[in-house]
């Protein structure tokens, strides 16, 4: 398999996983209910939502980095 095909597969994978990640962030994490309407609860839940979204985004980037390294091992450093 040549690298152009591998990169096309990588972009397809990025597309599917990006949409999936967007659904998790925008449907599950962002509308997560606040336990009570106090200022402290709102701030804490807001921070937790941002942290969870950031972790998910970083995991997505890490996955893409692992795939890049796999492609590099199969082609550049074989």
């Amino acid at each position: 398999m040549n690298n152009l095909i591998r990169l096309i597969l990588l972009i397809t994978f990025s597309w599917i996983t990006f949409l999936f990640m967007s659904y998790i962030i925008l449907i599950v994490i962002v509308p997560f209910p606040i336990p009570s309407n106090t200022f402290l609860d709102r701030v804490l839940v807001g921070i937790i939502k941002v942290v969870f979204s950031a972790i998910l985004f970083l995991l997505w980037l890490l996955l893409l980095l692992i795939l890049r390294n796999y492609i590099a091992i199969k082609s550049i450093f074989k």
Partner: protein
Amino acid sequence: MLVIDFHKKGSSMIPKPAGPAIFVGLVFPMISLYLLTLDLKYLAIFLVTSIVFIIGLVDDLRILSGFLKMALTILGSIPILIFGTYTPSIVLPFIGSTRLTIVYPLMVLITIPVVANAINMIDVYNGTLSGACTILAFSQFIITLISGNFGDLVFPLTLFMVSLAFYIFNKYPSRIFAGDSGSLILGAFFGASTIISRTEIPSLIAFLPAILNGFYILASIKGFVEHRQIKERPIILNENGLLEVSKSRHAPITLARLIVADGPMSEYIAARRILFLFAYSSLLAIITSLLMRW
């Protein structure tokens, strides 16, 4: 000024920057439309392009550090935030619009610098920058058409016409290079157009090869480093004038390096392959846009 075209035998000298010509092409329609309609979105995109152009021009004349360039391009986001020419919601396929009242302005703040610098990083071979921008603008035009925001078609159309005109001179073998002033404003205009025309998700999908390239460069060199400071080049020119991948483990693993890893190839073929990836991601973006209308 004249610079060496590294991927050619004989060290041919190429003029740069084309930034001022690209700038005039992008801002003239915007300022004309603002004067005719007094609609703030045209003024906002004019100011975004102008601010980023000044940063790019300073970088062309006096080299800025990678981090400073990234930090300064954040200023480009400010006109969109000040004039409020954004809608704080994102449209996703199948579920429609989701409100992001607090987070969206923060996303605006990072969109312009990220997109402008990612486009700057894709300027690796003759014609890749101008070709990629032409493809991205065309896909954004189709996406905006599908979404029904006919009033916003002028943004991708302007970018398409300017990128296409630039491509004629920038394609292999290049007769002019964009310079940072040219590449940054093309990216900033695309980012601003994405926000104003509300095509965030599909435009981001079309932009995936640039995101992957930018992220892979940052991951390899571990930070915002000016490309002139990268010690080991990922691509080398062999005695036949063909591009060959560097086997060094210290050279950054970029998209350009992965493309050439299939074997020695001409710069023309390598550039065509990168543009093919943009065409493919643009097709995925159009499919996503069609799913959003479902």
